[in-house]
């Protein structure tokens, strides 16, 4: 066993290549060529307490490279979250609802000194200081070009496409990896906010491998809410959640859709119809 561990030390740098990240050479910028690599066990050394949150989004590794030019520093952090849904998830949860989305990878946003984007399995954060002193350098262009080296044709996770576009509040589509709505038995879900008749409604989609998992979830939710519904069937179920308010569920096969924050159940039903029609 010891031998195996020891050999792994020597092979470790090769995994950098396996992860498919090749940092570019930037003309006019100096770099020492070193790439810092962090994993699940030492991510906290780079981002301290925030690491727990990244770990909950399937974090696998982080590679950090830096450049310098005339006193301006540029740092690129590439977080590998294992799959496109988790990468989109951590990106979506850190994105401000006021962000102006631009094309870079799947999508990105930024300001004069920072730029974040998601591309495939990767969530990328670019930071700079005094960038205004570097003529002709555009963070956005750099990000867009770098994104292509990470993932040529990134696509939104399929479940994101199920949300109707009408009345959708920008930048509110988010993936929650565990304990959705603070309820352990719900596990992961994707949610989005809608403005409808003056109310802010949250719609969510939970997808599982099979119908039995959803059935178990529904039964647990009914039990948790101490509701008296017996033998729930597929279709709409109204839950009086003690913490999250009234929740309208729609069970369809291996999907559980839902809505919170509504006052008019008919409007919610029509929104849910739009999702379930695509399933």
């Amino acid at each position, binding site marked *: 066993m*010891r031998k195996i*561990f*020891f050999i792994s*030390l*020597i092979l*470790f*740098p090769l995994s*950098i290549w396996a992860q498919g990240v090749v940092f570019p050479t930037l003309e006019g910028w100096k770099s020492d060529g070193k*790439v*810092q*690599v962090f*994993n*699940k*066990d*030492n991510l*906290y*050394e780079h*981002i*301290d*307490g*925030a690491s*727990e*949150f990244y770990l*909950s989004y399937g974090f696998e590794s982080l590679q950090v490279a830096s450049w310098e030019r005339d006193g301006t*520093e540029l740092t690129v952090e590439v977080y590998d979250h294992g799959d496109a849904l988790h990468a989109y998830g951590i990106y979506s*949860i*850190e*994105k*401000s609802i006021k962000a102006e989305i631009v094309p870079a990878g799947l999508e990105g946003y930024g300001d004069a000194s920072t730029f*974040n984007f998601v591309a495939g399995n990767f969530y990328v954060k670019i*930071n700079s*200081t005094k960038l205004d002193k570097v003529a002709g350098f555009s963070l956005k262009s750099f990000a867009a070009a770098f994104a292509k080296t990470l993932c040529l044709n990134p696509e939104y996770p399929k479940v994101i496409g199920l949300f109707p576009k009408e009345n959708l509040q920008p930048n509110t589509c*988010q993936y*929650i990896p*565990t*304990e*959705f*709505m*603070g*309820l*352990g038995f719900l596990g992961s879900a994707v949610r989005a906010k809608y403005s409808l008749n003056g109310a802010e409604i949250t719609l969510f989609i939970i997808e599982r491998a099979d119908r039995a998992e959803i059935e178990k979830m529904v039964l647990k939710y009914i039990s948790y809410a101490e509701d008296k519904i017996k033998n729930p069937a597929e279709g709409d179920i109204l839950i009086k959640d003690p*913490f*999250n308010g009234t929740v309208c569920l729609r069970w369809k096969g291996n999907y559980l859709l839902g809505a919170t924050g509504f006052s008019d159940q008919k409007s919610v039903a029509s929104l849910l119809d739009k999702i379930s029609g695509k399933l």
Partner: protein
Amino acid sequence: MANSTFNRRNFLFLGATATLGMAAQAIPASKEKKKKKNKEKKKKDIIYRTLGNTGIEVPIVSMGVMRADNPNILKAAYEIGIRHFDTASGYQDGRNEEMVGTYFKDIPRDQVIISTKIHPPKEGCSTEQFLEKFDQSLKRLQMSYVDILYLHAGSDVAYILDPRYTEALKRVKASGKARFIGVSTHANMATVINAAVDSKLYEVILTSYNFLMKDDTEMQKALQRANDAGLGIVGMKSMAGRYLDKEKKKPVNCMAALKWALSNPLIHTTIPGLTNFEMLKENWKVAQNHDLDETEKGDLQLAMNEVGLYCHGCMSCSGQCPQDLPIPDLMRSYMYNYGYSYPAKAHTTVAKLNLSHNPCEDCPGCTVACPNGFDVRERITDIARIKMVPANFLV
């Protein structure tokens, strides 16, 4: 949650059933200061402690908001009686502060104790840049002030006494944008706490503190010093990572771990990260009674007996080796390599020791006894070989 899945059988092979004796200063919950909550709330007695000279009185269980993504958990925590909420500018890139701000904007400001943290970038920043970051935090929190502003993640003295940051903290306090200033630490804690006391600047310490530190006398002394100097002391990472092994098959009894931390009266409150309602309810029970029952004591004792990867730096091994090998440094290197998967750091540490690649080869047997049960010879033999690997192969 982890404690509900805790399986004592995971630890039976260890065979230890000794009771705990580590919380020497523990005082029973029945003798703690309790308050009846406001009449509109449930009629439960909650234990309160005061954060040193700040005079802030809070329940012993507070809330680390970091991983919560649902404002309804904040709402439930507030309604159940939690009054201190801890966030940071870096959590979710500021979105965590936004969530805290969105929920608490409708709650009277003097009804909650809000803390946040600013972490200057690795390359450092100016006083003005620090202040700008903090102003952004206030904006996200929708507040004109926070109760406690921490310099985030202090692990060495130079960092926490950096004049750029201390000046910023002084200005923040003078402006009234933070009622009190503090420093958070989860590495080299005793040194940081002592330096914070000596600085006469910091008023609150946020520190890692858990049952794995039971033999850390330096930490206990530092906490006592901070307490005597009137600093508020907030505990974090009370559950020691929730698991004892890399495979996450050996969960910590989280309730017992939280109780253990709070059985030390020097810890004024703790900020467990609450992410679901079940966890909230369970943790809140500890605010009423932190006394460990016999099962919980047994669970923690068994967990403490687990031989993990982490050297606690107790220095018990010093002077035991006939070759006078620097065992703590070698054990730390082993931890860097296998615990943190950080071979470059292990290589650097071993290289500095100037040892042969097999420093134990001339010894017929090992006489070093580690109180944590490490097989010292085996670990040294394993890790010392790392110096044979070219440094540029390692990351």
